[in-house]
């Protein structure tokens, strides 16, 4: 049985849980506060340790009966961009949530990421491609979703990002979708 060493409010740990749920990969969870800083770690109890999202997703893609392939070529570039955005978002969100007084959480880098994400999603939609990964969601969507779903934590209003809002709505409808603190199940 695979074990995720993660932290419940951490976006990257959530991304691993979400991917595992969509892919029907059984996953035990161990609370490890270090994941908030260093990211999630996956172990199989013996000698396999994957540190960080890239390693974990690569490992998932090699598992039997997993349909998602690890992004290649142009998609790999998009995945790298999405991971960078998630990292910037995580840093800004940790800063905002741990501040002793309310602060403006949205940084310039986060705003640029949201704009770029909105442009990419709108372009996909207009070209008849429902997801950034193609006709089906994949690891890119898993990386992007926590950023879009937790935007409110940084005071980002989704009325400026209709394509991103549509993306959130569509991914939530997929079988296997799970939630985390900040992404409620009622919506």
């Amino acid at each position, binding site marked *: 049985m695979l074990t995720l060493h993660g932290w419940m409010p951490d976006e990257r740990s959530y991304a691993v849980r979400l991917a595992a749920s969509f892919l029907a990969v059984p996953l035990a969870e161990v609370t490890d506060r270090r994941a908030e800083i260093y990211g999630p770690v996956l172990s199989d109890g013996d000698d396999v340790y994957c540190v960080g999202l890239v390693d974990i997703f690569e490992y998932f893609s090699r598992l039997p009966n997993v349909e998602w392939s690890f992004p290649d070529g142009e998609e790999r570039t998009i995945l790298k961009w999405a991971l960078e955005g998630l990292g910037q978002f995580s840093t800004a969100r940790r800063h905002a949530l741990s501040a002793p007084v309310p602060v403006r959480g949205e940084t310039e880098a986060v705003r640029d990421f949201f704009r770029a994400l909105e442009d990419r999603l*709108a372009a996909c939609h*207009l070209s008849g491609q429902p997801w950034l990964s193609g006709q089906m969601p994949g690891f890119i969507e898993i990386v992007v979703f926590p950023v879009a779903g937790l935007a409110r934590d940084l005071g980002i*209003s989704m*009325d400026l990002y*209709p*394509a991103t*809002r549509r993306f959130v*709505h569509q991914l939530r409808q997929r079988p296997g979708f799970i939630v985390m603190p900040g992404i409620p199940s*009622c919506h």
Partner: protein
Amino acid sequence: MIPVALSRDIAEGEVVPVRHDGQEMVLWRDAVGKLQAWEDRCPHRGVQLSLGFIRENRLACLYHGWQYDHEGRCRVIPAHPALNPPSTIKTHAYTVVETAGMIWVTMAASDERVPRAPAEGAWHGVRSLAIRASEDETRRALVLDQHYWRISADRLIAFHMPEPNVAMVHLAVRDETSLRREADWLLRMRDTLEEIAC
């Protein structure tokens, strides 16, 4: 009337915040596709209804779960399931019209004359795009004097102001085959306008 979104950007069961000129609204589309536009404030505790969710074809507030039907009347108070909520508990509704591929809202009180929504006919929404520019700069760039929309050849271009220095520009076209080309045009316009605004 103020154009606030493209019709296709609000799916059935979706709850969406909209801001214009300091006012906050919630738009939501019920299970049969009917759209509502209300003040974004629960009459109970003032929480934004746009944080809410749809249950049994009613908009439910996220805070205490009070549910409002399509007329804006409170129908369910979960903490008091046996209570029939009084009719005075009601949201403030705005007039909303869907035409030309866009959603138009009037802020006027419901008994005032409602301006006619423009541009009837078959239009296809291209996209709504946030542009970092003031209202004056946006009006100059779009060649708009008084209204929030105009038709130029095969384009219906409209905007509203969610923030003082952010314009949300909505574009619809008559030719469905030109959506990608028109989206590129809109992106170029954003880049040019933001460069000028800087």
